[in-house]
């Protein structure tokens, strides 16, 4: 997935007719929509949703700043750059996603 996102980002920066600020935001196919947010430090937040979901850049930003930074970066026991093992991060992320307005209970 990293290769695909990297290729799409460099493609977008070359194709853009104007100067870009945020770059690649999302793409959609006939079945799903993939949302993308990248921090200046290189942390990438990717979310796949249904087609009916609009721009959720602030949601992804919240996942990074309020969840990842608070619970993983500031945790001395979580080694950065490796898979996140933190159970607290997992449960907080899960409850945050479930609280989002576009999360439907129908999806399980």
């Amino acid at each position, binding site marked *: 997935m990293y290769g695909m996102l990297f290729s799409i980002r460099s493609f977008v920066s070359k194709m*853009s007719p104007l100067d870009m600020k*945020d770059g690649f935001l999302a793409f*959609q196919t006939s079945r799903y929509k993939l949302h993308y947010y990248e921090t200046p430090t290189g942390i990438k937040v990717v979310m796949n949703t249904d087609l009916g979901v609009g721009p959720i850049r602030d949601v992804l930003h919240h996942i990074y700043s309020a969840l990842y930074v608070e619970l993983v970066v500031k945790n001395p026991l979580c080694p950065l750059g490796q898979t996140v093992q933190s159970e607290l991060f997992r449960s907080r992320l899960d409850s945050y996603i479930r609280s989002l307005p576009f999360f439907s209970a129908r999806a399980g």
Partner: protein
Amino acid sequence: MAIFSVYVVNKAGGLIYQLDSYAPRAEAEKTFSYPLDLLLKLHDERVLVAFGQRDGIRVGHAVLAINGKDVNGKYTADGKEGSSGIEMLETDTFKLHCFQTLTGIKFVVLADPRQAGIDSLLRKIYEIYSDFALKNPFYSLEMPIRCELFDQNLKLALEVAEKAGTFGPGS
């Protein structure tokens, strides 16, 4: 359903035709809802369980239906593949729309993010392509398009779309 295979053998003993149609004996049929405990993989035109085991469904079992719609190999019964290619790509400065025809020709349009009506514009471009490029006897398929009428009508269609569609400042 009681017929399992058909083989045709020529005089020299070579196999010239083979047809295997195994009716799935459905020894165990289960319905799951998301999240699945099984890992699925595409194998031999069917979606099979590659890893994981639950309630009698083991490695080798095939997916029969999704959300009530029967599955035929890797396509759903109404002929649509799992997911199409990228149809729209969004950035902060532009939106890229892509329309792929049944023959594999892709029409790509870059537009302002606020521009509306690109889907109909893509279909209009497809129409112009089939009218002025494909019906041109001097045009060969898959080659660069150098047809004057195609250029003219394409520019006209773009002007119509720009006037009708955008909701941003300046048009």
